[in-house]
């Protein structure tokens, strides 16, 4: 993506990640309902984390293949939802928007019961209900139905992300919320400081979204069996990272799995906005506990979904 002049590029030394000490090895079998793998991490205020990094100017990673296409604007009257966390607890004061590829409504915050209603008066191209800050809780963009008038999404959820993230570790393992990334030794992680000005915001966090709390339309018909919120949304990884996920759906050992990434970028560089794209193939390990990448990889940090091939 053609982003701005100043970027942060993480060129972390290979080796152990001093911050990645909150997950136990071989923990993949304990996925739980929130994907924290029993590590004791909780959401709430992000902790402080410092990772070796050096700023770089200019684009480092090449742009994604691009999936932009013009569609007809959609007329929506209003969107209402009740937003809760993975335990069903309402999330108060959370900003929500209706965002298309070219325009966003002004933010409206949830009340103390997690309720929010956004009224619209303009048609929007590819409208999605955007909620979650991608810092304390996962961020999601379910596309809204065409010409649906007033929409009620009901009770929808977003998992609380771990308070302390993990440094991206080229040549090593980066883990959070039972999700593991394996970056190639020469990997670069590129993101915009505009979106993540604080160092601890530029660390890897992940948590699983209980499917029962997934908003209608989030999987866009892809029949996903598990969805994981990853952060920092929008960070580009080049070359792509292998991703290793807990086998929450319970696929049989040896099964091959599609690993998809959700289009969160209005420039639609890596996936169509609000839709999903297969970026990797996974296989369930012999123990049936983990889905390991066998082909492809994750080129951008966004929500990740899995389904049987």
């Amino acid at each position: 993506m053609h982003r701005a002049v100043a970027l942060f590029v993480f060129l972390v030394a290979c080796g152990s990640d001093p911050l990645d000490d909150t997950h136990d090895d071989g923990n993949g079998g304990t996925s739980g309902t929130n994907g924290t793998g029993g590590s004791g991490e909780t959401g709430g205020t992000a902790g402080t984390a410092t990772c070796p990094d050096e700023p770089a100017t200019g684009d480092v990673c090449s742009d994604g293949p691009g999936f932009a296409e013009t569609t007809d604007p959609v007329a929506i009257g209003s969107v209402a939802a009740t937003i809760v966390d993975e335990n069903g607890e309402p999330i108060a004061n959370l900003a929500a928007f209706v965002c298309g590829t070219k325009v966003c409504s002004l933010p409206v915050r949830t009340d103390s019961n997690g309720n929010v209603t956004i009224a619209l008066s303009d048609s929007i191209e590819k409208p999605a209900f955007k909620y979650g800050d991608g810092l304390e809780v996962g961020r999601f963009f379910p596309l809204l139905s065409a010409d649906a008038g007033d929409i009620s999404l009901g009770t929808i959820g977003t998992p609380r992300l771990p308070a302390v993230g993990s440094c991206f570790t080229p040549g090593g393992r980066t883990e959070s919320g039972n999700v593991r990334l394996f970056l190639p030794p020469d990997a670069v992680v590129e993101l915009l400081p505009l979106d993540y000005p604080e160092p601890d915001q530029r660390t890897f966090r992940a948590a699983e979204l209980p499917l029962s709390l997934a908003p209608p339309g989030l999987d866009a018909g892809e029949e996903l069996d598990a969805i994981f919120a990853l952060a920092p949304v929008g960070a580009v990884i080049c070359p792509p990272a292998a991703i290793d996920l807990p086998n929450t759906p319970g696929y049989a050992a040896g099964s091959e799995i599609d690993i998809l990434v959700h289009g969160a970028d209005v420039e639609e560089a890596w996936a169509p906005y609000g839709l999903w794209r297969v970026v990797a193939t996974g296989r369930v390990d012999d123990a049936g506990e983990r889905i390991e990448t066998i082909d492809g990889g994750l080129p951008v940090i966004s929500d990740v979904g899995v389904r049987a091939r």
Partner: protein
Amino acid sequence: MNAWRAAPLALLALACGTNRPEIPDELLQAPPTGCSLDYAEGPYGTEVGSVAADTCFKGWARPNETTHEVSTLQNLAFGRYFDPTGERYELLLVNSAALWCMACQVEHEDLPDRYREYAPRGLVILSALFQDREGDPANVDDLALWVETFDTPFPMVLDPDYQLGVYAPAASAPLNLLLDARTMRILEKFTGDQSAVLWPLVEEELSRREAE
């Protein structure tokens, strides 16, 4: 007490007998409203065809040529770019942005190049940052981060009270107003990133004026 009020009083004080001094007409006019001494006359409105009211902000006239601190903030207003003769400014593009607005970020990746292309022909861009990532009023740190990210060469200001919201037909961002700098009349307004429509309009308008 400012000069507008002192001068008539001074003249009156000098009067003696029946030879009352004539007070110049310009001192009898009400002082201008808004934040610029010289501005287009009203009535003012918010729709296409009406004259936009003068609006005051704090920001940086040349963000890429200054340090980004509270102490370097300048008073910048629409009136700064009011140019009845068109000698310096023909068009004023007023743009709103917010840190949470991805479409605004995409728009600003392109704006510096557009500014460099059209500024010599009389376009000036005034962009106003109104909210941070959480939807709270933008502050100087947010503005600094924005202009440093995009290496902004055109005036960029803070609009924490979202004064530009009066022009938005819907509560949304980005918002773009294209004003005739000679009259401050609103030529067009756009909600959302409508670069495909906006820039041909700018080209058409500037070319028409150059042909006159």
